[in-house]
């Protein structure tokens, strides 16, 4: 793998666009159904209520990252607001049922990690990836609790667990619509955006 030296100056927008397009191609080669570069200045954050990780749907298991990250949302948004371009992509679920859903989420988390990693070694050391759903369902479904929610305890799956797009206050339906230019965000029954992933490049 070619590893780029860290640049002293911020990458110019033209080069950043080219690298983000290359990332889209990589996403498609690695199984994404759609992938597109989006400008981060257009991102809108919803006003998310902090649930404290407890008040979730019946049967749902809260984690450090879900339904809302257990760290200040303000700093999260301030940080995400610094990026210029991001890549949004979608995976197609193969089949349905709990096992298939879990497999699909695992594929999504793997792909987000690989794309984030690709950015990192190209010299975008602050690249950051978001997935869909609850990382606990993917990595810790058999655990009694999310260990990272206990003060002083580490995450059982460091470098893999990450929050979802929706947990960070971004609207997945709007992002899914950005994958299909010319069509607005779907509502009602058609609102399910599928398995979305997102990598903020720089």
């Amino acid at each position, binding site marked *: 793998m*070619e*590893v780029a030296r860290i640049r002293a100056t911020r990458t110019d927008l033209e080069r950043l666009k080219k690298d983000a397009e290359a990332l889209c191609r990589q996403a498609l080669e690695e199984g994404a159904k759609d992938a597109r570069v989006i400008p981060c200045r257009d991102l809108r954050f919803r006003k998310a209520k902090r649930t404290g990780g407890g008040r979730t749907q019946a049967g749902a298991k809260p984690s450090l990252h879900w339904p809302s990250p257990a760290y200040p949302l303000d700093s999260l948004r301030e940080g995400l607001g610094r990026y210029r371009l991001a890549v949004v992509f979608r995976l197609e679920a193969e089949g349905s049922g709990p096992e298939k859903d879990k497999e699909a989420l695992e594929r999504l988390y793997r792909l987000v990690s690989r794309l984030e990693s690709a950015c990192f*070694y190209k010299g975008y050391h602050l690249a950051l990836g978001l997935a869909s759903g609850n990382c606990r369902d993917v990595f810790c479904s058999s655990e009694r609790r999310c260990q990272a929610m206990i003060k*002083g305890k580490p995450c059982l799956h460091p470098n893999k*667990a990450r929050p979802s797009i929706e947990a960070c206050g971004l609207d997945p339906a709007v992002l899914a619509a950005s994958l299909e230019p010319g069509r607005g965000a779907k509502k009602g029954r058609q609102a399910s955006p599928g398995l979305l992933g997102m990598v903020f490049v720089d």
Partner: protein
Amino acid sequence: MKKAAERKKTKSVGLSAGTGAGSLSQEDPLLEGRLQELLGVAMRAGASDAKVISSADVVLDPRVRLKCLIPRCSAAGTCVHCPPDGLPLQETAAVISRYRKGIFFRVVVESELVSGPVVSEAIARKGAGQNRAALMLLGAYYLLVLQIAALLERRARQWGYEPSGYGAGTCRDVLCLFQPHCRALLTPRGCRHPDLSRPSMESCGMDVYTMGANVGWDIYPVGGSVRPEDVPKGSLMGLVLVA
């Protein structure tokens, strides 16, 4: 006699740093010489490179602390200095604004110690599994960064300054790996190693990679997905704000 007068003079200058460092370098003709001396101290103590930087050269970015949490680092939430605990960006900015000059140094590490899946896995599992010896050696490099920072701080304090030092990585894995938890995080008893424990630059929101590149060092991203032969070297960096 001359030395005593000089000491007295420095002490008054050092105290003024805590109350607003305004035009400190103009008021303190000794500062430049002392910063040069501190560079020598850093190099003799084991740094591979060291530079005097202005506090304006410290690059703060809210994305840096975010990167500690997304994806979750193995140290996040386990150490008093690491996100989501530790110094938030605004507080770091307030601290930096009290200083004008600092010593920025780096310790070069062999790429085999900081890259490749085995090392990455060993770090994530806190030394369990293969390559434990290499991990201990890497820990020694992190410890060296903390020691250099502590040494520079001590020297600057002797001159009457109120320095502020920062290391690399989490001090928990270096100083308290065999302890059940970070005592400062979970108990009111405080840190077990106040003499050596320092927050890392990145845990305070400093964009260390960019700062290293800005002073002309060859900095490469290292991690678990890259082979050691693909990276010329790894770099651990530290900073001591002096005056």
